[in-house]
């Protein structure tokens, strides 16, 4: 025991555990910081989980355009516990996006970004976008057909940058087209460049917590006054501050551990998303869609009016970043309590509802043609008249069914035609089909007069 005690004392002296590290761990924090303060550290725990599982995945992954897909199949179906490893990395990414988002909302709602924590907010804004960049490049590294088309869609988005768009797109793909150079670059970004910047910023973000202190829980009628705040904060800490470790940190570690266990549980139950087709841009019968956390953006692209969309794709993110960066300077002092800042709460609710709605729409994708819609069955047609039956066949053959539903069968992009015979006369139907209109193509050029008449006869029986 004597030896161990001596060795411990030696390490303590040489490493400065008692002198330097413990005072940092036990720095005083305001009391009463309850469970709402755990989301930032949960995001950090998710990041650590991503680092560890990411290192595990690189042991198995082949970062070349030719082999990445095959190695993903190996990881998902053959490697020992590879499916679990991939699943944890996938749900860990989801967890990190969620925790970063909730942490940011909490900081906004309690106005913790106000004096003197402006730089914490600003570094946090960059961390948010880095997290999203990691999430996007990560889903792309699966390098299945979804990954390849994600790269193309990203290139098209940056292509909307004025003047230099085409060059930026080319830079992103590593050339004029998808190829051997594309995946190498995304792999480098995802495993080296972005994590490097992320670690630096996380270190800076944490340093600022020590420098300016954890924000005290907001209280109605106790506004932030930059002139007196620091002095007031120090006095408060002296009077009622508690050591961070373990009196505040226990909640962080407990919540972080529960988060990680939940992620592992999800990975065990659901596993990672199944791979789509191989990464050949010539395999076009595919239905590219991003992972859930980018579905709101995906949905937005389908719903924006075409004439302003290009501008929204460029100016939308630009203005959002500028607004977020400007926030702590526009609103630097005053009340922090959400009870005195109802518009901040209202705005947060709006953002959550907006994103949630877009997510649901993205999952449903009502704007996409249903290419797999089957021809209508006899029980739906409800007629033995050969013209009506022929019309129902044409309804599928000419692609009407991709976008229009009849009795629950077909796409939902256009109006439901189950009862269209009640709404429109044969003449109106004919005009509509020939000329198109709204969001419907004109079929006058492709339908013969005879087919048109048969189709209208079928539709007229839908009542």
């Amino acid at each position: 025991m004597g030896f161990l005690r001596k060795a411990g004392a030696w390490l303590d002296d040489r490493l400065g555990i008692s002198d330097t590290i413990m005072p940092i761990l036990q720095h005083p924090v305001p009391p009463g910081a309850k469970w709402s303060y755990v989301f930032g550290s949960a995001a950090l725990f998710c990041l650590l989980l991503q680092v560890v599982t990411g290192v595990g995945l690189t042991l198995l992954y082949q970062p070349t355009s030719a082999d990445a897909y095959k190695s993903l199949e190996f990881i998902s179906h053959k490697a020992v516990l590879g499916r679990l490893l991939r699943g944890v990395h996938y749900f860990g990414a989801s967890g990190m996006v969620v925790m970063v988002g909730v942490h940011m909302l909490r900081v906004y709602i309690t106005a913790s970004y106000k004096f003197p924590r402006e730089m914490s907010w600003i570094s946090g804004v960059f961390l948010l976008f880095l997290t999203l960049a990691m999430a996007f490049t990560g889903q792309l590294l699966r390098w299945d057909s979804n990954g390849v088309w994600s790269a193309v869609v990203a290139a098209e988005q940056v292509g909307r940058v004025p003047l230099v768009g085409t060059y930026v797109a080319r830079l992103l793909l590593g050339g004029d087209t998808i190829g051997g150079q594309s995946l190498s670059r995304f792999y480098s970004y995802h495993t080296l460049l972005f994590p490097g910047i992320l670690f630096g910023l996380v270190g800076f973000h944490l340093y600022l917590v020590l420098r300016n202190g954890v924000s005290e829980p907001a209280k109605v009628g106790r506004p932030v006054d930059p002139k007196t705040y620091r002095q007031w904060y120090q006095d408060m800490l002296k009077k009622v501050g508690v050591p961070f470790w373990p009196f505040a940190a226990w909640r962080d570690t407990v919540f972080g551990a529960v988060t990680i266990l939940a992620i592992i549980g999800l990975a065990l139950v659901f596993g990672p998303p199944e791979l789509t087709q191989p990464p050949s841009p010539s395999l076009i019968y595919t239905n590219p869609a991003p992972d859930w956390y980018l579905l709101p953006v995906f949905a937005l692209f389908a719903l924006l009016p075409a004439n302003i969309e290009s501008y929204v794709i460029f100016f939308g993110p630009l203005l959002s970043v500028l607004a977020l960066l400007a926030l702590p300077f526009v609103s630097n002092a005053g009340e922090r309590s959400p009870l005195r800042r109802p518009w901040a709460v209202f705005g947060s609710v709006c953002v959550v509802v907006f994103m949630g709605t877009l997510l649901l729409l993205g999952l449903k994708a009502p704007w996409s043609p249903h290419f797999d819609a089957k021809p209508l069955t006899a029980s739906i047609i409800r007629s033995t008249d050969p013209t009506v039956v022929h019309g129902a066949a044409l309804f599928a053959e000419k692609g009407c069914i991709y976008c229009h539903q009849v009795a629950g069968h077909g796409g939902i992009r256009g109006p439901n035609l189950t009862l269209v015979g009640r709404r429109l006369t044969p003449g109106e139907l004919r005009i509509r089909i020939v000329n198109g209109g709204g969001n419907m193509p004109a079929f006058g050029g492709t339908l013969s007069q005879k087919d048109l008449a048969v189709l209208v006869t079928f539709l007229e029986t839908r009542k």
Partner: protein
Amino acid sequence: MSEPTNPAAPADEPRRDFLVKLSLGMGTLAAAAVSVPVVSALLAPLLEKEPQTWRKVGTLADFPVGSTQLVKFENADPVAWSGVSSQSAAWLRRDSETTFVAFSVNCAHLGCPVRWEAGAGLFMCPCHGGIYYKDGSVAAGPPPRGLTQYRIRVADNHDVELLTAPIPITNITS
């Protein structure tokens, strides 16, 4: 005076100034020198001119007049580790004995792969529902412009050849 002077003394101001400038200057120089090849690697796609080349996609006999077919071809300069990701595809239609038209499979909206629906006579995109007529013009949905076309030529030996091209990037002014 031969003994060491106090570095904080006012007389040492020029020396301090020099040492600061020397350190920062040398550091900047070394960092700049290193960054040249690193930034070159990052910007390589912009520094290299990418070639275009004619690729055979079939012979005249493969394409009946009036048919629209998906043709696959290799990009202009695949690297050894490209695998299948250097493949591209185009929709090739033979309009008459002598004329072909070839459309990019990339939707002009955000680049997703459009499919030719022969029954409807339309190109349709699965991502956001962009629809195009058979001539490639926009029929419905969000695309701000029509489908891009490839150049096609027929060689003397009846090979049908397609000129490879970059993935068409839609700009903000399109």
